C-alpha cells in the first residue's frame, strides 16, 4: 500500500505502524463523572465497517507523525489522509 502523507507525499506502508480506529483520539476525561463507563466504551466499543474507515497510522520509519487515514476496508482505497494532530484539534482536543 501507498499512503499519501500530507507533509511527505506518497510513502510506502512498510514505513508505518498501524494502531486502529481513529476514535481513539476521543479519550474521555478520567476525572469526569461516569468516567468508568466512558472508558469502557472508549476501550472496547468499535465499529467494524465494510467501507470507509478512519484509522490511525504512525510514520515510525519516517517523520513520527500520527496520521488519520480514511481507507475503504473492502478495496484498501485511501481517500483522505490528515495529520492526527489537526484532527484532534478539530475534535476539540487541546491541552
Amino acid at each position, binding site marked *: 500500500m501507498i499512503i499519501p502523507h500530507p507533509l511527505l507525499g506518497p510513502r510506502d506502508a512498510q514505513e508505518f505502524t498501524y494502531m486502529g480506529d481513529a476514535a481513539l483520539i476521543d*479519550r474521555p*476525561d478520567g476525572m469526569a463523572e461516569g468516567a*468508568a463507563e466512558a472508558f469502557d466504551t472508549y476501550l472496547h466499543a468499535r465499529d467494524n465497517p465494510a467501507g470507509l474507515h478512519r484509522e490511525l497510522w504512525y510514520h515510525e520509519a519516517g517523520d513520527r507523525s500520527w496520521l488519520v487515514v480514511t481507507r475503504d476496508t473492502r478495496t484498501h482505497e485511501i481517500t483522505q489522509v490528515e495529520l492526527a494532530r489537526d484532527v484532534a484539534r478539530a475534535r476539540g482536543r487541546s491541552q
Partner: protein
Amino acid sequence: MTGRRLEHGGQIDRAQALRFRFDGRALTGHPGDTLASALLANGVRLVGRSFKYHRPRGILSAGPEEPNALVTLRSGARAEPNTRATVAELFDGLTATSQNRWPSLRFDALAINDLAAPLLGAGFYYKTFMWPAAFWERVYEPLIRRAAGLGRLSGAPDPDAYDKGFLHADLLVIGAGPAGLAAALAAGRAGARVVLADEDFRMGGRLNAETFALGDTTGADWAAAAVAELAGMAHVRLLPRTTVFGAFDHGIYGAVERVADHLPDPPPGTPRQILWRITTRRTILAAGATERPIAFADNDRPGVMLAGSLRAYANRWGVAPGKRVAVFTNNDDGLRTARDLRAHGVRVAAVIDARPDAPDPRIDGARHLPGAVVIGTSGRLGLTDVTVRTADVREFRIDCDALGVSGGWNPALHLTCHQRGRPVWDDRIAAFAPGPDLPPGMAVAGAAAGVPSTHGALHSGHAAAAEALDALGRTAPPADLPQAEDAPLALRPLWHVPGTRRAWLDLQNDVTVKDIAQAQHEGFGAVEHMKRYTTLGMATDQGKIANVPALGVMAELTGRSIAETGTTIFRPPYTPVSLGALGGRATGPTFKPTRLTPTHPWAEAQGAVFVEVGQWLRAQYFPRAGETHWRQSVDREVLAVRAGVGLCDVTTLGKIDIQGTDAARFVNRVYCNGFARLAVGRVRYGLMLREDGIVMDDGTTARLAEDHFVMTTTTANAGPVFRHLEFARQCLWPDLDVQLISTTDAWAQIAVAGPKSRTLLQRVIDPGHDISNAAFPFMACGAVTVCGGLRARLFRISFSGELAYELAVPARYGNALMERLMERGADLGATPYGTEALSVLRIEKGHAAGGELDGRTTAQNLRLGRMVSTKKDSIGAVAARRPGLNTEDTLELVGLRARRPDSRLAAGSHLFAPAARTEAANDLGWVSSAAFSPHLGAPIALAFLRGGAARQGEVLRAVNLLSGQDTEVEVTSPHFIDPDGERLRA
C-alpha cells in the same frame, strides 16, 4: 527415441553445444534451448512420475503451465526441486534429476498405487484416514508425509544471495508478446517511463513460436527489432526472465527476476534472483493465453502434448517431438500445428477434428477426420498409437508417437483476480475473460483479454497504451503496426470424450473426470468445494491447465452453463516464488540489524560472552581464567557487586528526552504515579500503564530542569513507549508545549554499583562536583563533568539494591569511560558484570522486569497498586480501577526460595499446593523470573501467586511439566536483600 532435432530452423545457436545430464545420462543441447526442448531433441519423452498414482509422464507444454515435467535442477546445496523443465534455460553443465520415483524413472515401485486407484479416488484422505483417532499422529501422518510431495529439498543452506529492488514506472507492461511489445513501443515512444517484464529469456511471446509474417518480416524478427528499439530508450527498463507474480494494493506489483538461474553458478557479486517491488501508475497485462487440453481415456501418456506447444518446439527450438504425429483439435489453431509440423518435414498421421464441419487442412499424407474424437491411447512408457472414433462411429487405431491436443485457449488473466476481480465467461472464445473489476490502473490487452489474433493483439496493445498515456497526460504516437494474421477463432467447445477408462483433467494432482463426477455425486458440486475435495488446481501449476476443463465437466454433470457453474479466482503468486527471493538479504547475521553498545570493543577485549537482546548484542557475562561454567562467572560478578563495585553497560535502556514548558504536565499524565511536583535534580521511579489498565513499562525519569526530563524505558519497550508518547502528544493533547526525541543512542550509560561505587566515581568525576551522600542523595541527578571536562550526567539510581549510580557520557566516549573506570577501580576490585548478573541482582532485590511486565500484569499484581494516583487523570488509571482487576484473590508478586539449595527452579513453572493434583483447576500462579542467588546460596524466583501477599511462609510446589521439575518452595517477600533499602541510601 522418438523426438529429434530438425535439420534447420529454431532460435538456437547450433554452432555451440551445451552438455547436460538428465538422471545421469549425458546429453547435449544448444544455447536458446530450455531443458524441455533439449530433452525432446534427445528423444527423451518420459520425464517424471505423477504425484498420486506414479504414472509415467512426459512434457505436456512449453511454458509455465507445465504440470508434469518437474525435475530437481542442479545438485548439492543448489539442488532445486519441482523446477519446470519447460522454463528452465539450458546451460553448460546443467544436471537434472527426475522425481517421485524409486528405484528408477522407468521402473517405479510405487506405480502399484495405480492398481489401487479405485481406492484412492477423490476424497480418499477424508474417508480413509479417519479412525481410530489415535492413529492420526503415529500412523497416518508419517505415512502421508512420506508418500506426499514431489521433489526433496537438499537440506543444506542456500549458498546464493538474493536481492530486493524497487522500481517506479508510469506504465508496467506484463508480457512481451505482440500486445505487450506494441504497448511498450507506444508508451516508450511517447516518453513514458516503462517497465516491460517477461518471464521468458527471449522476449516476443508467441511471435517466437509461430511462422506467420508480420508485415514483410517474421514474427520473431519483428519482436527482436521492437526489443532493440526499446532497449535503446533510456526511460524504458526491459526485464527478461522476470515473472510478475502478484498485483497488490495501490499499483504495487511483485516480480522475480531470475538473474543467474540460467548460469551454472551466479558470478561473484551477482544475486541469483531479485525480488522487484514495482510501483506503477498504470499497468497493461499482456500475458497471453494458455492452451487447454481435451480429456479422453489415457490422455496422460508421454507423447500427448498441447498442440500449440508441439508447434512451438518445432518452430522455436527446431525440435520434432515425434516421428509420426497426430493432432486432436476442436478449433482451427490445431490445424496450424499440423501445417507447421508438415512444413518442417514431420510426418502427420492424422488430423482428428471434433468439429463435424471441420475444414480440411489438406496436409500431405495426413488423414482428415472431421467429427472424430480420440477415445484411447497405448504405450507403457510413451505413446505408440491412439484409438479414434469417427463421426460414423467407426473405431480404429492410428500409429503415432506424439499427439498434439488443442481444446482452445484460456486468457492468462490470473493477475486480474489479485484484487478480488472475478473472471466472466465469454461464449465467443469459450473461455473465461477478465472481468470488469480489474485492479485499479490495470488494462488487459491481446490474448489475455480474449483477443484471438495477432492483428488483434498488436492493435489492442497499442490501444491500451494510448488510453494509459492519455490518463498519464501524454499523447500516444500514431500506431505504426505491421500487417498480421487475423484469423477468427473457429472453436466448438469440447471438454472430455466420454469413456470408461480414466480421462485426466489435472495431471499434476492426478484428478480424473470420474473424480469430478464423484465429487458432484457426494455433494461437493460447488466449485470451491470440488477443488478442495479433489485437490484439482492445487500445487505448483495452480490449475493453469486443469481448472477450466474441470469446470466444463462439472457444468455438463449438473446441466448448467459454465457461467452458472462459476469459477475459482486466482491469488498471488502466479508461479511459485522461492523463499530465498522473499527473504532477500535478511538471512543469518543480516536477518536483522545488530546494535552494538558503546563499550562493545572493550567488552570483546575482556572476552565477554554476548547475548542478543532484541537487536542489541549485550555482554552476558565475563568469564575469567579457570571458570568452566557460566554460573561460576555470574556468581562471582554478583558477589563482587554486593561486596565492592561492579560496572555494567546499560545504554540499551531507552532514553527519551522530554522538553517544553508543559513537560511536567505531560510526564504526569503518562505515568500513573505523580510526577508534577518532582523537584529539579531528582529522579523518580515511574509506572506506565496502557489505557486498559495493564502495565506497559516502567523506568526512572529524571528532571534535569524545570522544562526538561529524561525518561528511561526498558530495553524492549524503547520503541513502543516512544510511539505511545507521540500518540499522547499528537492525538490526545495536541496543544501541550512538549517535544520528544529519542536519545538512546546519543548517551552511553554505565551502571556503577556496589558499596564502593561512590569511591570509584569520586576518582573520575571532576573536582567541584560534590557527590557525598548529603549533597547527592539517593534519587539525585545532575550534570557533572568527568575525566577533566567531559560533560556527563549522573543519576543515583539502583537496580541491584546496592549503593549505585548510572553515569552517562556522549556515546562516543562510552568505551573510554569504561576503560578509565576499570583502571581507576582496579584497587577497589572493580568488576564488569553482564546481563545475567544484572538479572540475578534485580531478582534478589525484587525489581520487576520483562518477565513481570508481560502485557498481562497490573499495578495490583505487582503490589504497586497504591502508586496509581486517584488525584489526577493519567493514562490507564480509570481502567486500572475496574472491579475485575481488583479482586481479593488477585495474583500478587511474591518471592520464592527453593527449600533445597540443589534443586532447580525455572521461570514458567506453575504453583500448586503440596497435596494438589497438578491440573489447571488447582493452579495458584506462575514463576515469572528465576535465578540462583549466590547471596542466599539457593535458587530463588519472583512469582505471581493468588493472594500472595498474605501467604508469606507457606510451602508450595513449583511444577514445570515440560522439564519434569517439581520443586518445593517457600513463599517469601520479593525483596530477598535489604528490604528496607538501607544499602541504597548508604
